[in-house]
């Protein structure tokens, strides 16, 4: 692997006013034919191309992105990473991902600013307490570093939290110290740069209009830059996956909704961990710039507008102020929405389908960012070998027919 970034490079480029840095990736025109096309240039898609080239030694791969890299949900999430999921299948999936996160900056030689600052999931009533304690025990059995924290311990780590004099007092929380945050753009850029080094063509501003099939096999894609043929196609288009699947005649059990997030004006460090609350429903962390990064639930109807309604923001901030009265007079700087694709069981789909050579990695819903390296790694395995890895085998499309769902609605530490 070529190392583009080092202390010597930084010094050398400082002398030329940082004007001579090489481009991180090429901007090629698409070829007529690729062995593998990945649709979607976010973290999951670029990561898939990277692992296909690196771990499976495959060549002649393209990533096609309709906008710019990481401009969809990769750049719109609240960057929380954790693996404290209840069910074994999910725990294995997200823990696989968390282990890859822990080594990602050095693997890519690109700083993704992965910060293991810990995540609290608060309990506000008796039911929460019982449910969270059960989840903590399940996590421990799966080798995940989850524990129960009582209100005193929470108050010690997050002194600004109002745990007593409120309608929903904090009765405890699960705490995962290895969880944390990362810089989401850097994840897309790091994967893009290294995939490009392996010869992957990253084609931006090129929208796939239709997936073409012939005799039950994939033929290629129709794009705004013409028809590109391919032997295998991986669709990793988050909210738009079902729209693309429809063009190949496949109906996926997905619903696309808006998930909003917002950031405040930057302030001095006040919170050095991530706090999520299910019952009053809001989560908050503080970015390295000092902005509070805030998110909550989805808007209640299908939409592709990437905007969302004001009432959801109001609900979110009501919860934030209840927990942190200190934030009451702060100003919010920016707000945005991303289109998330939600499965009926709130678990993802990493799977083949009835069309030969067509693969889907979708349904990540409101929590896909944390899974980026794991999802990409397992999807690359699925595409390369034409069969799922044992970790993503339970996340097949078939589960909706067999009924063996991985029901993480409510079980996954936050409501979806």
């Amino acid at each position, binding site marked *: 692997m070529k190392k583009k970034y080092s202390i010597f490079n930084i010094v050398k480029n400082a002398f030329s006013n940082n004007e001579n840095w090489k481009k991180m990736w090429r901007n090629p025109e698409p070829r007529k034919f690729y062995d593998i096309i990945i649709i979607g240039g976010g973290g999951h898609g670029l990561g898939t191309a990277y692992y296909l080239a690196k771990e499976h030694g495959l060549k002649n791969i393209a990533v096609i992105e309709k906008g710019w890299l990481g401009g969809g949900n990769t750049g719109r999430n609240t960057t929380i990473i954790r693996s404290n999921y209840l069910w074994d299948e999910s725990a294995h999936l997200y823990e696989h991902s968390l282990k890859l996160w822990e080594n990602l900056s050095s693997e890519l030689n690109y700083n993704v600013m992965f910060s293991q600052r810990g995540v609290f999931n608060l309990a506000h009533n008796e039911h929460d307490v019982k449910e969270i304690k059960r989840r903590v025990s399940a996590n421990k059995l799966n080798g995940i570093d989850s524990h129960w924290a009582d209100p005193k311990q929470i108050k010690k780590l997050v002194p600004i939290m109002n745990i007593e004099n409120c309608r929903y007092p904090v009765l405890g929380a699960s705490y995962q110290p290895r969880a944390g945050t990362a810089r989401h753009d850097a994840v897309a850029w790091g994967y893009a740069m290294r995939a490009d080094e392996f010869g992957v063509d990253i084609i931006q501003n090129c*929208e796939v209009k239709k997936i073409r099939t012939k005799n039950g096999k994939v033929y290629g894609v129709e794009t*705004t830059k013409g028809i590109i043929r391919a032997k295998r196609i991986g669709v990793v288009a988050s909210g738009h996956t079902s*729209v693309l699947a429809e063009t190949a005649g496949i109906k996926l059990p997905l619903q696309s909704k808006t998930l909003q997030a917002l950031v405040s004006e930057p302030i001095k460090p006040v919170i050095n961990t991530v706090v999520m609350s299910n019952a009053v429903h809001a989560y908050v962390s503080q970015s390295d710039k000092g902005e509070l990064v805030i998110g909550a639930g989805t808007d209640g109807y*299908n939409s592709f*507008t990437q*905007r969302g309604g004001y*009432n959801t923001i109001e609900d979110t901030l009501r919860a934030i102020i209840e927990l942190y009265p200190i934030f009451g007079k702060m100003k919010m700087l920016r707000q945005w929405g991303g289109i998330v694709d939600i499965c009926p069981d709130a678990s993802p789909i990493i799977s083949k389908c009835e069309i030969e050579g067509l693969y889907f990695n979708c349904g990540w819903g409101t929590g896909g960012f944390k899974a980026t390296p794991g999802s990409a790694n397992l999807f690359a395995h699925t595409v390369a070998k034409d069969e799922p890895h044992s970790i993503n085998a339970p996340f097949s499309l078939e589960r*909706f027919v*067999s009924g063996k769902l991985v029901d993480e609605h409510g079980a996954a530490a936050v409501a979806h």
Partner: protein
Amino acid sequence: MLLINCPYCGERDQIEFTNGGEAHVARPKNPDQVSDREWSEYVFVRANPKGIYYERWVHTHGCKKWFNAVRNTSTDEILKVYKIGDPPPPIKKFKNTLKSPSGEPDVGSGNFAVKKT
């Protein structure tokens, strides 16, 4: 925020309503005879287009009555509301301004839907 014209109460704020997902989903007439795959489609698969589609709403904080709507999911415009039992208006009646299945202009932009064309 959307204004929704409840067929019983008139125009009200969207937060008074709850969305009920796709409308006109028919339950198979002979559930014991359909295959697992067909049953799975009925239970789990719902239309999710970027564009115009039929959906249900209920006026939760008002008359509490269910009704149907035709909405463009790429702009959130509600094109028509009609009562349960009324025949669905043909979708072709409404002009879809989208150029491609995912609704992007020739050179992609994630925020196309915000711009008025």
